[in-house]
């Protein structure tokens, strides 16, 4: 697929991911955690719980509630971000929570809260997908019962070409970005967003391409968890 195509600024093939590394168990005080480096993205996710629900009236008698916050540090962006939570961060927190929730077996934890905190320390294109991969790994690291890992990757359009995993340099001239999150076992897309301009053909192609990215991230998550729990017998780097 990578031949006969316009060259990407990054030198990557159209279906090529940026360098990705995932490390589980990076925050001692958390019940589960992960650090993902995804291109220039550096994102940490931590999971606390299942724990007591506060305030009490939020408690649900037959399952856990899931809280999720996506937050960017002021130094993570090109221009310093103000410390207050922005509307963009509130929206992304919501779509990430809705992407992760179907994977969590909430019925196993009635009357509790599971908290997912995502901290963007350095941002690049695709930070919400990177965040989902980190959070999914952190949930598994926390030992939360899950139906599946949640894996996420974007496809987009740059210079008229549908490509995998748009980075922030490409994004400046990019024509479309379509992040998705996937539960591989069930084939369910649990996050889907689109901004830009895609024909029907490009739309379908972008979906397929994003899926191939998700498959790679799925493996990287599993490797990161193996690395932590089985002495790193599996590799953890995408070349």
């Amino acid at each position, binding site marked *: 697929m990578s031949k006969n195509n316009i060259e990407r600024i990054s030198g990557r093939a159209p279906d090529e991911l940026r360098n990705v590394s995932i490390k589980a168990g990076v925050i001692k005080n958390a019940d589960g955690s992960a650090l993902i480096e995804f291109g220039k993205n550096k994102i940490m996710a931590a999971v606390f719980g299942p724990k007591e629900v506060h305030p009490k009236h*939020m408690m*649900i008698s037959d399952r856990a*509630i*899931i*809280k*999720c*916050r996506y937050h960017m540090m002021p130094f993570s962006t090109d221009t310093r971000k103000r410390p207050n939570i922005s*509307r*963009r961060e*509130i*929206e992304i*927190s*919501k*779509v990430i*929570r*809705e992407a992760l*929730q*179907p994977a969590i077996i909430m019925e196993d934890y009635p009357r509790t*809260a599971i908290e997912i905190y995502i901290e963007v320390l350095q941002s690049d294109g695709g930070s919400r997908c990177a965040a989902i991969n980190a959070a999914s790994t952190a949930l598994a690291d926390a030992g939360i019962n899950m139906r599946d890992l949640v894996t996420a990757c974007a496809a987009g359009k740059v210079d008229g070409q549908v490509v995998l995993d748009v980075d922030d340099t490409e994004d400046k001239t990019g024509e479309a970005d*379509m992040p998705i999150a996937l*539960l591989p076992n*069930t*084939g*369910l*897309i*649990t*996050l*889907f*967003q*689109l*901004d*830009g*301009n*895609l*024909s*029907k053909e490009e*739309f*379908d192609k972008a*979906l*397929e391409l994003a*899926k191939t990215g998700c498959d790679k991230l799925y493996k990287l998550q599993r490797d990161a968890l193996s690395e932590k729990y089985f002495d790193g017998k599996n590799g953890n780097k995408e070349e």
Partner: protein
Amino acid sequence: MPAVKKHRIVDSITRESIISNLANSTRLDERGLLDYRNLEIETNILKDKTNGSARVKLGESEVWAGIKVETANPFPDTPAEGVMTCNAEMLPICSQYIEPGPPDENTIELSRVSDRGIRESGMIDIKELCIKEGERVYSVYIDVAVINEDGNLFDAVSYAATTALLMADMNKFTIENDEVKMLDEKQPLPIKSVPVSTTFAKIEDKIIIDPNADEQEMATARVTLVTDENGKYVSGQKGKPGGFTFDELKEISVISKEKGDEIRVKIREAVKNGS
């Protein structure tokens, strides 16, 4: 922090009726799975204080949109571009489930998805909103009030905002001796396309369009796709903690275009009648 919240309650009889109807590919209000509810679009309903306005009723969901065009300093990094802001408000009159106060995550999502549909479609040519580079640009405020809530606000808000923008005018300015001067003339906004939003929901593996409040509450997943008149997909957003398969999304994308074209005709008609 975003978290699970109190939701609309759908009683078990309604739930069962909705599901058993869907099993027969019909809906409780007798629509087909891919039928929109009755759509009424009225223009000029706020003509004394706005530059453009529209009221949309989609079934029992009712929203009012008003456009205000003011002038402002441009942002330092885009000195030759105008500014556009889209803000939807869930008024507490619209439902017993809405409390007054700052917008919650659902309202913020509604505002931001409406904003992106307009922005990403290039509906407004923001380069044409420059009055004097680096000094003065038009600032277009799109405010939408939700008056009565019965599901699928993403589409209702989008139609109202789009129609109001199509109806809107703005002052003309000229530059004399390096000074910006307002003329006693109006001009329409620089409109380049008409994006149309379509929203789908999934209940027990059935895909329906234009969910009402009960359907929306029961759905495991919701997705909005916005298309422009060239048949391009310009914006999309999945919601709710469930998912769609790849095949479902592809199928939805086909219907979105067809339905979008039908609704675009209705918007253009309302604008024509109102002008």
